Structures are given as C-alpha cells and as structure tokens.
C-alpha cells in the first residue's frame, strides 16, 4: 500500500487496520479445555510462551482462563514449558 512506502520517524502501529475481537465472546465459547493442546497452541508463541492480549485480542476474563489452561496443560506434559521451534 502507499502507506508502507512512506518512511515514518516513529514506527507505525502494525496491522491496526483489522479490528481485533475476543474469539471466545464472539463464538460463545464458555470453557477452555486444558487437554486440547492443539487449540491452545494458537495462544502461544513459537517459544511456548503465552501470547499477550494485545496480540491475540482476547478479553481479560478469557485471557486468564487461557493462561490457566496453558499452565495446566504444561503441568501434564501436553505443552512444553519452553522450546525453540514449537510451530
């Protein structure tokens, strides 16, 4: 886009074009299963760390549930605590 060619002095905010939404509220998901590692991998970066809300766009209530589910699945060995190339 033309916007990208312009050199900003300060870094432009990345991909603020699309409106972030909380996928749990949107789809009416009420419970995040800690045993479902494949779903939880979407909320973890490639080092296995929990992604912040500002990137995933989830609401505070569900971010806590996701973080707790990830910690539980780490405890039972479904997800790594730290890794180098997860995805």
């Amino acid at each position, binding site marked *: 886009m033309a916007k990208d060619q312009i050199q900003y002095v300060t870094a432009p905010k990345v991909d603020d074009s699309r409106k972030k939404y909380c996928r749990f509220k949107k789809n009416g998901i009420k419970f995040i*299963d800690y045993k479902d590692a494949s779903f939880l991998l979407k909320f973890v970066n490639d080092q296995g760390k929990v992604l912040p809300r500002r990137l995933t766009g989830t609401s505070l209530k569900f971010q806590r549930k996701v973080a707790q589910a990830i910690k539980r699945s780490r405890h039972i060995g479904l997800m790594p605590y730290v890794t180098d190339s997860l995805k």
Partner: protein
Amino acid sequence: MQQYETVIILTPLLSEEAAKEVLTKFSKLMTDNGAEIIDEDNWGLKKLAYPIEKKTTGFYHLTTFKAPGEFINKLEVEYRRDERVMRFLTISLDKHAMAYSEKKRSGAFNKKKETKTEGVAK
C-alpha cells in the same frame, strides 16, 4: 457432591496389564470412598512435551467423577504414594466445564470450539 476430573500419567515402563492394574486400583479406591465414577477415558501411550522423570512417553488416563470434597486429599495422597504415577492433576468442574465434558462425551465431533477452526472429528 462436587464433580471432579483427574488426569494421571503412568510411567511407560509398565506393561499393559500393570497399567490396567494401577487404574483399577484407583477406581476401586474411588468407589470405596463413596465417589461415583462418571467416565473413564484412556488415552494410552502418548509422547510428552518434555521429559518427566527422564522418560519421554507416558500412559495418560482421564477420570471424571463425583465425590465428596474431603476425599480429594486422600486420593492425591494415594497418587503421591504410588511411584508408578508420574504426574497427576485433579480439577473441580464448574457448570461450563461440566457442560463441555458432557458435550464432548456425547458428541465428540461437534465440539463448539472446533466448528470455527476445523470440524475434524477428534
């Protein structure tokens, strides 16, 4: 009587029937103490994301049951005592969790979360 869900991981060194024997031991312990087992789900041998006790695989077993509150401590003491159990996790289920596990047991294919991403059967 609260509803609980517990996942235990057994060491892979066990033979098939030794693993079954451990599971029956714990389910008997549960029924003796007035717990009512709703569902047992054996995932079998699975690879662990990181080595636990120097082992990279383990027998996973999931049990959903209703039990009086004070029984959980006893159960976990038994888990700690039995060295064949590498790791365990017991959580109490609230109404959303109960609805989810009910739905998963009845229709595994129509998991709510999966419809948005991919409708693959588990």
